[in-house]
Each structure stands twice: as C-alpha cells, then as structure tokens.
C-alpha cells in the first residue's frame, strides 16, 4: 500500500507542476504588456511602468517562474490586480460557494446514478434498461450551460417553481438556500448521472455473470445480500474512478452553470478575472480547480485500492 500511495502521490505532484507550468506559460510568455492591459490605453507610460514593477512583470521570466512555483506551494497568490484584495481571500469565499453547489450536485448524482445503473443491469436488454442507457447517453453529451438554460426556462419561466438566480439573499435559511441551489445542481446532475449509471450498469452486469455470484446464490444467500455484499463491492470500482474524474469535470462545467444562474462562485470569478485581465485571480482559480481535480482522482484511486486489493498486486508486478 505504501508503495502504491507513494507512486500515486508522486504522479499527483508531477501533474500539479505541469498544470502550474502550463498556466504560467499561457499567462506570461505570450506577448502583451500586463500593466497596459490592466490600466487601459489612457494610463500614462510612467504609471504602467510603476504597475509592472510593483507586480514584478518587469523581472526576467525565470525569476517570475520561480516565484509562481513558490506561490503555488505556499498557496499564496498575492493580490488581485483589480481590487487589491488578497487573491486567497477572494477565492476562499467563492470556492466555499462553489463547493456548496458541487456537493449538492454530487449528493444527488451519485446515488441516482448508482441506483439507475443497478436497476438497469438487473433488467439487462429489457425496455427499462434500454431507456436508462439511452437517456444517460443523450443527457451526458449535452453541455452544462445548455441543460441549465433549458431547466431555467422550463421550471422558472414556464412553471415558476424556482428562482432564476441562484444567489439567495443574505440571511436565507439553509432550507431556503437549498431551494435556490437545487436548479443549478440539477443542471449538472442531468449531465453527470448518465455516465455513472452506465459505468455501474456495466460493472453490475459483469458481476452478475461471474462465478462468485453464482456461488453466493447457490450457498442460499438472499438476493439482497448477494447484491449488496458480493456484487456491488466488486462492481463499484469503475464507478468510483468515474466519480473521481467527474468531480474534476464538475468544476469545469460549474463555470457555465454559475454564469447562467448568476451564482457568484469560483467559475463566475474566473470569468470576471478574464474580463479584467486580473491574472493573479485567474491563475489561482485554475490552479485551485486543478488541485481539487487531482485530489478527487487521487482519493478515488486510493478508495479502489482499499476496496479491491488486486490493484495493489498489479503495482507490485
């Protein structure tokens, strides 16, 4: 286990380094005067120079790169260009709001996907199975902002069930917030549940035909017990991998959803930062999402290794 953990952690660090380097290259190596872009065409030459000096973009690239890497490991991204607040302060708040939305989406998606997949696998090739598989295939290919727009039209404009804006007024109770967040969460649930359902279906269908399932059934165990103790445990490994990856996707798709519902999370902050050329915020936002992405795949891999020790044997060989 220790060796596997080490290998996985090392890969995670390499990934993070590559991500940080890509972001650095995209943001810095491109031509363009940062001070001029931020301050606009009317600023004097001197103030542009002062600005560039203050934020350090007049230093050699290698020095800047070194600083960017140090910032990453100390999780300190300096100050925002446009509001002079610390980047970590701004993003901390946004991240918390995005997390609420993401967690809500996951809490609906994961059980729904697993139950649907399990249901479909037990009725393999019958109508209900086909319907679930085809629905999942169709909905999981639609971009999140499209489902968000369609949902907000149907449920807010046509039937007045929810609010078009996801930002609850200050002081809204937890249950009240739930009502505001439900629709944006559903926009993501629609996109992600299909993939999880398909993965679970494949895993369960595979397990159902296996020898250990036949043995368990012939031992006289009840169907529920066979399903829960023998089949699901083995069938869930691919599903867990997919969920790990989905958490990452979710934070990509959340940008579009936050835009449609005007929800001030990390995605909307990124879009604002792009508009204002607020590079520290932009850079940090992408890195933070990258870290979440990495952590979620890492946790998924470790969970699988724990559930299924055969994974560790593979590594040893």
């Amino acid at each position, binding site marked *: 286990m220790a060796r596997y953990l080490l290998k996985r952690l090392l890969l995670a660090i390499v990934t993070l380094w*590559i991500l940080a380097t890509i*972001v650095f290259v*995209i943001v810095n190596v491109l031509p363009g005067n940062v001070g001029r872009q931020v301050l606009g065409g009317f600023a004097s030459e001197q103030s542009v120079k002062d600005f560039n000096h203050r934020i350090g973009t007049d230093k050699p690239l290698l020095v800047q790169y070194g600083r960017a890497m140090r910032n990453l490991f100390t999780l300190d991204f300096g100050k925002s260009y446009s509001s002079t607040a610390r980047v970590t302060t701004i993003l901390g708040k946004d991240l918390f709001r995005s997390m609420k939305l993401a967690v809500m989406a996951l809490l609906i998606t994961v059980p729904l996907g697993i139950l649907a997949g399990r249901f479909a696998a037990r009725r393999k090739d019958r109508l209900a199975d086909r319907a679930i598989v085809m629905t999942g295939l169709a909905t999981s290919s*639609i971009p999140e902002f499209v489902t968000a727009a369609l949902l907000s039209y149907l449920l807010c404009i046509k039937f007045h069930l929810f609010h078009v804006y996801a930002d609850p007024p200050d002081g809204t109770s937890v249950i009240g917030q739930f009502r505001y967040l439900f629709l944006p969460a559903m926009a993501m649930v629609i996109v992600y549940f299909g993939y999880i359902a398909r993965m679970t279906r494949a895993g369960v269908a595979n397990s159902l035909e296996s020898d250990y399932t036949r043995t368990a059934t012939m031992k006289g165990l009840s169907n529920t017990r066979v399903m829960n103790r023998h089949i699901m445990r083995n069938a869930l490994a691919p599903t867990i991998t997919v969920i790990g990856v989905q958490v990452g996707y979710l*934070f990509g798709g959340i940008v579009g959803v936050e835009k449609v519902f005007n929800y001030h999370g990390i995605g909307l902050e*990124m879009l604002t930062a792009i508009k204002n050329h607020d590079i520290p915020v932009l850079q940090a936002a992408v890195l933070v999402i990258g870290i979440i992405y990495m952590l979620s795949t890492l946790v998924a891999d470790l969970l699988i290794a724990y559930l299924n020790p055969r994974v560790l044997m593979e590594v040893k060989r």
Partner: protein
Amino acid sequence: MTIGGASMGQVMPSSAGAGVEPGPNIGGVAAVSDRKLVRKENWRLIRRRPGFIIGGLVVAFWVACALFGSHIAPKSAFGTQFPSGVAYPTNQSPNGTFWFGTDRSGRDVFARVIVGARDVLAVAPLAAILSVVAGTVLGLLMGYVRGLLDNIISRLVEAFLSLPVLLIALLSVTTLGNSRWIVITVVAVLFTPIVARTVRSAVITEADLDYVTSAKLRGETTGFIMFREVLPNVTAPIIVELTVRIGYAIFTVASLAFLGAGPQPPSADWGAQVSLSYGDLNAGFWWPTIFPALAIATLVIAVNLIADAVQSVIEA
C-alpha cells in the same frame, strides 16, 4: 492468410497465427482482403443500428445547414429590417413571419440557428481530426518503440489527463485570442493525450504478434512497420476514438463559445447566441436562448448516438 492481426480474431478461423507462415507478399495480400471483409461487415452492422440512422439524419441536417445555411434560411441571419426598410420588431415571440421569433437586436432567430451550424461544425470536427492524427502518431511511437520514450510520454499523458480541459482551453483561448484556428489548435492539443493513450494500448497488443516479428525479420524500417503494418490493424479503436472525440469537441467548443472564448457578436454561433440572450430569460424572452440551446443539444446527442453505434459494433 494468417497475417491479419488480433483485432479480427472473431472472424478468422482459430488456426490464425498458428499455421505455417506463407511468404510475406502472399500473406500481406490475404491480410488486406481479410481486413476489407471485416470492415465491410462492420459497416453493414453499423448502418443497421437505429442510433446510427437517427443520429446520421440529424447530423446530415446540420451539415447541410452549415454548408448551405444562408440559402436555406428564409431571412438573413444578421439583417434587422424588411426589404421595405421597416425594422424587424425586437424580442418578437415566434409567429408566422419569425418562426423562432427575433432576438434583442431584432435579428431572425430561425435564420441564426440555421446559419450558426457552420460556426461549430467548422471548428469541432477539425479539432477532433487533428487530435486523432497527432494522438495516433504519438500512440504508435509510445506503443511500438516503448522504452524510455514511452515512459516519459506516458507520465506526461497521465498528468495531462487530470487537467481540467475546459478551463485550460478557456484560459488559452482568452489569452491567445478568439480566432477560429486558435480554438481548433487548443482543443486539438488538449485532446491529443487522450487519443494517444487509447492508440498506445491497442498498439501494444499488436506489437507482439507474428506479423510484426516477420516484418522485423524482413528488415523493414521502424517507420514502415509502424505505419504500414501496425496502423492498418488498429484502425478500429482509432475510428471509435474519432467519433467520440467529435462529440466532446462539439461539447467543448460550444461551452467555450458560451463563456466568451470563441466567435464574438454578431456571430450566429449557437453558444454565442445563448451567451447573448440568456440574461433575457427572466423577462420571458425564451426563444433567442432556447432554440440555439436545443440546436446544440440535438447535434451533440446525434453525434453521440453515432459514436455509440460505431463503438458497440466495433468493440462487440
């Protein structure tokens, strides 16, 4: 006739690969005709699948719109007045004159949806094709040459796979510029590692087979073996990958356009249209948002139906 390769094992007699090796030339010819047979049979099976037929019809419709959009649409996608000079009403709900209504500038939404097919279809499939070509070359190198090269690229690919693709694309396009070629290149680059991984694993199983060994003994060059011997035998997973990638490319390109990294106003691009109009949903003007949104949904679903049909036949 044994030099066919494993990918068609189910069609070939079980003696494949075990018998006496005929001369390389004869073997090559037989393998080629076998491959053709398998391909023909696969194509016949794919064509019969309902998903392929429905998806194909929808995609054909949008491709026709992309090619001849301005001739099909009854009005201009950018015009805001009747020939008489009277301005179109703004935010007009759908009626007999404006089938899908008009947007906030008074442009005909129906015409814009038809013409807008071109924006996404000129970008996404090309990006997917480029990523598949680059990924195939990379995958062949990794899977056939192996060794240190494979090790290094594999680690890089794994790292790339856990990057948030949409966000990196968003960041790149907004800093590099909104041009069509930049979107194509960025999406292609970000998809390449995924394709490379698929091709690599297909190549690894091929590289151990007899026909590769015999080509090596004949003294063929590495390049010849990779592209002329191995490549034709791994086309099946590559075709699957291509159809799947086109679906993801449309997804990504449309999302980028919605987020402002792509065609700019007054473009009729679907994502850009949604981006321009979704703020008016609350005021009840749903048509300039919902029709382009539905257009995106139908196109991606159709492409995925085709990809699913291809995948289930080839991987069966």
